[in-house]
């Protein structure tokens, strides 16, 4: 059964020490994480820097939007092919404006989906947490498959100066 514990700190330095201690104690990257109520500079806690593929989302969305917009603008004109002033049925410049807007719209929607997906949200089982984190406390959370390691993790957190340890 998966279980997790949360060590709470008031300052970033001991939280960073706890993260280092967990690495030294052989905990795998990805099994422990730091929770804060505000963004800290990347690497402030020596944490694992997450890789992401967010940049692919707007490109993917834009391609879908562009394709749909070609279909929509061309089809609406071809479905009612009224010649105006001897000009071609498909009015390219006017189409470009709608195509531009639809491409951008799909790009934005896909980016927002990407942000939510890459943030691993919605998170229906958030696990152990403390509301003081949004008051400036810093949480170091460790997830275990093997409960025999709980004591090791608690030792590391206590050694680093955790003010409190919570269990899921």
């Amino acid at each position, binding site marked *: 059964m998966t279980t997790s514990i949360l060590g709470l700190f008031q300052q970033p330095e001991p939280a960073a020490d706890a993260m280092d201690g967990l690495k030294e104690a052989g905990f795998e990257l990805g099994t422990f*994480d*730091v*929770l*804060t*109520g*505000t*963004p*800290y*500079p*990347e*690497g*402030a*806690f020596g944490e*694992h*820097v*997450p890789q*992401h593929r*967010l*940049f692919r989302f*707007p490109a993917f969305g834009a391609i879908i939007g562009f394709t749909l917009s070609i279909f*929509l*603008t061309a*089809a*609406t*004109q071809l*479905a*009612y092919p009224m010649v*105006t002033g001897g000009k071609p049925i498909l*009015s390219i410049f*006017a*189409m470009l*404006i*709608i195509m*531009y*807007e*639809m491409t*951008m*719209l799909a790009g*934005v*929607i896909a*980016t*927002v989906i*990407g*942000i*939510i997906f*890459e*943030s*691993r*949200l*919605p*998170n*229906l*089982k*958030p696990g152990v*947490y403390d*509301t003081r*984190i*949004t*008051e*400036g406390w810093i949480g170091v959370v460790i997830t275990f498959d093997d409960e025999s390691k709980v004591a090791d993790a608690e030792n590391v957190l206590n050694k680093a100066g955790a003010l409190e340890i919570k269990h899921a």
Partner: protein
Amino acid sequence: MQQRRELDQVYTNRKLLNGQLDTPKWWAPTVAILGIAVILGLFVIATMINKGLGVTGLARPVYWGLFITTFVFWVGISHAGIMISAILRLTQAEWRRPVTRAAELLTVFSLLTALVFPLIHAGRPWRIAYWILPYDFARGIYPNIRSPLIMDPVAISTYLTGSTLFLYVALLPDLGNLRDRTTGWKNAMYTVLALGWRGNPRQWKMQTVGGILLSALMLPIFVSVHSIVSWDFAVASAVEGWHSTIFAPYFVIGAVHSGVSAVVTMMALMRWLWGWDDFIRPEHFDALARLLIVVATGWLGFTFLELIFALYGQDAPEIALREMQILTWPWNLLFIIFLLTGYLIPVPMWLFKRVRTNIALMFWTSILVNIGMWLERFLIIVPGLARRTPFVYTWEAYRPSAVEWTILVWSFAWVTFLMLLFSRFFPLVPLFEQKESQVFTDDVMIGRAKVPAIVREAE
């Protein structure tokens, strides 16, 4: 310019969530009064739809009047959000932090309000569906995508959707904060809306990278929206004063001028009403006023360019229109008020730091700008149509009716009502941005001077 003020996170939560956790005493009566005004306005709109556009002052040849003027005005105000939020985020301007949420919110609510005007202006709003949506399968008649009147709703709905999503994504950390501070049904609501936000490095990284990415995507939309609104006029080659090639950039910069001024108005109100003196400080007004000086001067340049291009061609009808717009009663009075309020009074005042850091003066000058900017749109739209031209056999002077004025006033009550309603449930200043500023800023000694230094990126 950056002033250092050490504020702990508990204090920041308590102060910036005072609208959600403890309702201020003035909130309920103000919302009630605005609510009554909103209902009265909706009643007038319903009456107008029932009776028809005959209750307005619109008459041949002026069929675009107060409603379209107010539509352009609110679209203009909506440009505040992206100007402030996206550009300042991309350039990592530190003073953006207390401003962004209010600006994004103003974008969403003013766009929602702007959309009402073309709908009611059409007289029979339900028929707009035929005009905009490609769904008339039975008769095979679809929207004419060559018309700016189709491009316009497409651009505005893109902007509205994008801005709303942008607002929501940036709200996620604060929703997590509200979830942690509430109980009962409010806690349940914030828990659902926060989507399980915890504040781990991955989520913060997505906020930063995603914020920049969305800003970069929203900027071209922001430019396109008011450009397309301007084409509603600029492609009407039969109306002198409208068919100008500089309308797109002219409208965009005018929109930024009015939008940023509206943000100043809103910031002053937020500081006074919620007592956020520690967060919305004179330095923020100073920075906004400096930005406004540049924007306003660029806009004034376009105003004169429009006149110069019109007069340089020595086209008789165009000259006659300008003569009417600038020299003939009552347009000349409106033109003078427009120029005074839009530029000549506020901008010279903003040149002085004492004015830029005086919040009351900034509040009143920003209101002056928006009076001027509303008049600018009115002076572009109405005289162009009102000038007597050949081959038009009936003629009436346009006098906006009480119905039109009431709906104009309603739009202000509606936007304020929506803002206050939002403020009851969601923070108007992004808390995590404020706290980030505390984490990323420290004092360093240079010689004997203590200077606030800001960390941008860790190595």
